């Protein structure tokens, strides 16, 4: 396989082959999706899944490659969302510097990335299961802080009236442009994570996940690599936060609450933490359930349902839906090879 690429690649760049059939089919389907989908399916299902998929992806980056399970990804996204509200315009009559979007967005993402690096720096002081505790403590503390503080976070009500920008003659909050915006950023982050995982840094990070002591002995700066992974995850989560605040038009402590933090973990775990596509799959499943399971169990008991699904997944297949697929696939292949009954 790799040999074939090496020999034919010299004459013609077969990037299509490198991309893989699965990616091409999926990509085409996602690009053509607006042709068949209604506005509701475009934003509430499509856009929303992509946003939460990005959040899950930032968690997958940390846990899948770095072995650090974080519950603070929504907090990082929330920092970007609050930054957009504070730096840009809002109609809550508090702060709102009125910066244009092309200035506010980079600053918001930067703030999120730095916050993520800080959270990372705090939590990599310890190892293993401590990370989940520390990040949960940080997420919860930030939630309470946002709720209590009126000077910066405008307390309980948060900020409302945040508009997605209008440029190039397009209102980016309209269903179709918003969907493509989400899709573009999600694909970008997905490709970046996939590419990054095969880069020197990605390889080093995975080696650190598997054996930090050995990597330290080999002369690698373990802490720096981990914190850098947090910074990268922060960029993705920050972008998702910007999209989220444009999607909702508002941000409040409820956006970054503990429920939301756990939702991101559920999404990533249900989808699978071994491959970057997992979180998107998980996000789609959870969003679809959120939208349609309400008809079955009623809006009140939705959390019981999602909690049960989560428990079953953790018990049955620790690698989520991707893990299930990985288990079924060999059976199917065997089936095809078997010479009749």
């Amino acid at each position, binding site marked *: 396989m790799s040999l074939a690429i090496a020999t034919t690649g010299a004459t013609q760049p077969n990037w299509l082959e490198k991309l893989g059939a699965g990616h091409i089919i999926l990509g085409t389907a996602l690009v053509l999706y607006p042709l068949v989908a209604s506005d509701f399916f475009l934003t509430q299902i499509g856009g929303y899944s992509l946003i939460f998929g990005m959040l899950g992806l930032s968690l997958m980056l940390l846990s899948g490659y770095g072995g650090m399970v974080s519950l603070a990804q929504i907090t990082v996204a929330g920092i970007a969302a609050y930054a957009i509200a504070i730096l840009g315009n809002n109609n809550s009559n508090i702060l709102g510097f009125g910066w244009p979007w092309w200035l506010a967005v980079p600053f918001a993402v930067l703030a999120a990335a730095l916050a993520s690096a800080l959270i990372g720096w705090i939590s990599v*002081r310890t190892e293993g299961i401590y990370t989940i505790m520390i990040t949960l403590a940080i997420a919860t503390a930030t939630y309470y802080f946002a709720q209590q503080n009126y000077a910066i976070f405008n307390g309980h009500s948060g900020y409302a009236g945040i508009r997605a920008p209008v440029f190039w003659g397009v209102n980016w909050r309209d269903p179709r442009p918003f969907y493509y915006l989400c899709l573009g950023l999600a694909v970008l982050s997905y490709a970046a994570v996939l590419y990054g995982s095969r880069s020197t840094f990605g390889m080093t990070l995975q080696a650190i996940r598997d054996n930090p002591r050995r990597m330290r002995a080999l002369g690698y700066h373990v802490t720096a690599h981990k914190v850098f992974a947090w910074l990268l995850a922060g960029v993705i989560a920050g972008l998702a936060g910007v999209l989220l605040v444009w999607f909702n038009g508002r941000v409040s402590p409820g956006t970054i609450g503990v429920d939301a933090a756990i939702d991101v973990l559920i999404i990533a775990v249900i989808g699978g933490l071994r491959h970057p596509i997992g979180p998107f799959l998980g996000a789609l499943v959870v969003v679809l359930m959120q939208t349609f399971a309400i008809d079955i169990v009623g809006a009140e008991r939705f959390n*019981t349902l999602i909690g*049960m699904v989560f*428990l079953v997944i953790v*018990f049955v297949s620790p690698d989520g839906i991707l893990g299930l697929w990985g288990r079924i696939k060999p059976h199917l292949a065997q089936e095809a090879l078997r010479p009749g009954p």
Partner: protein
Amino acid sequence: MSLLDRPSQSTLAESGMTRRQAWGLVGLLAAAVIAWLVFAVWPDWLNSILISKKAFVSAILNGITLAGLYFLVASGFTLIFGLMRNVNLAHGSLYLLGAYIGYEVTNRTGYWLLGVAAGFAVLAIVGVIMQVFIFRRLEGDDLRQTLVSIGISIVAADLMLAVWAGGTYQITTPEWLDGALTLPIITAVRSNGASVFLTYPLYRVVVLAAAIVIGVGLWLMLHKTRVGMMIRAGVDDRAMLQASGVNVHAVFAIVFAVGAGLAGFAGVVGGSALSVAPGEDVRYLLASLVVVIVGGMGSITGAAIGALLIGLAEQIGLVYFPTYGIVLTFVIMVVTLAVRPQGIMGKAR
């Protein structure tokens, strides 16, 4: 192994003596300052800085009683983690469930003490069930155990919401616990020379006393009984404990029963002093997390120190910088992690 360890430990202890003495001196000075702050009549300039003596001393007392409550919740959490490496993120749910059960039992029977006992007993049983039927199946896989505990907390919170709805309950305390205690602390001197003494709710003093009694009891159980010996041995080396013929699963079940029972007990006691409402589970989960991160995993003494720090920080923050109070808690956690990642009383692993 132990032979190799011994010399290095003794040199550490020798060089640490002077440092320990220095810390002792600092502690003594701090204690003297606090004692003066509490018992002396304040000059005006101090009153103007710290609002008033009454506010300050009340904040300290509230902080200590809250610490008692936090200790009750966190001690179970830390014991379970220390022995089984099981981060039980459903611990806050256990607290809330205990509070609801205490409310129901107290309301139906009219006996508050019965409610407290029920809170402990029912949650102890729930804890054993959780350990035997759920966590035992995932032994040795701490990430999955944690994820499962998160799942349980989601389902539990939702089901509790279904049963008890979103309202706020208050468990009625018996009459003999109502009323206030006049403490021998002078808050101010009236112009006619009469001293104003500080009064404090009796119930909170009782909560604090209960926490201290339980803390001492736990310490005695861990250090003086056979089960405690097994638990401590398990914290240090579980495989070795198992190899020496102890039924570790029975020990695990006992620890889970005690830990969950204490959370339920704290739920009833806390629900009587404060209130019972959805969302309290997250509050106490956060408290236990921070207490245990600061105090050190698996250490009862650490949990006590951590609870004291966090309780005081929360109440002092509430009085002096209301909207930034939580930042103080956060700073304590970050500083601890930066200086001593394993926690104040935690053992380096």
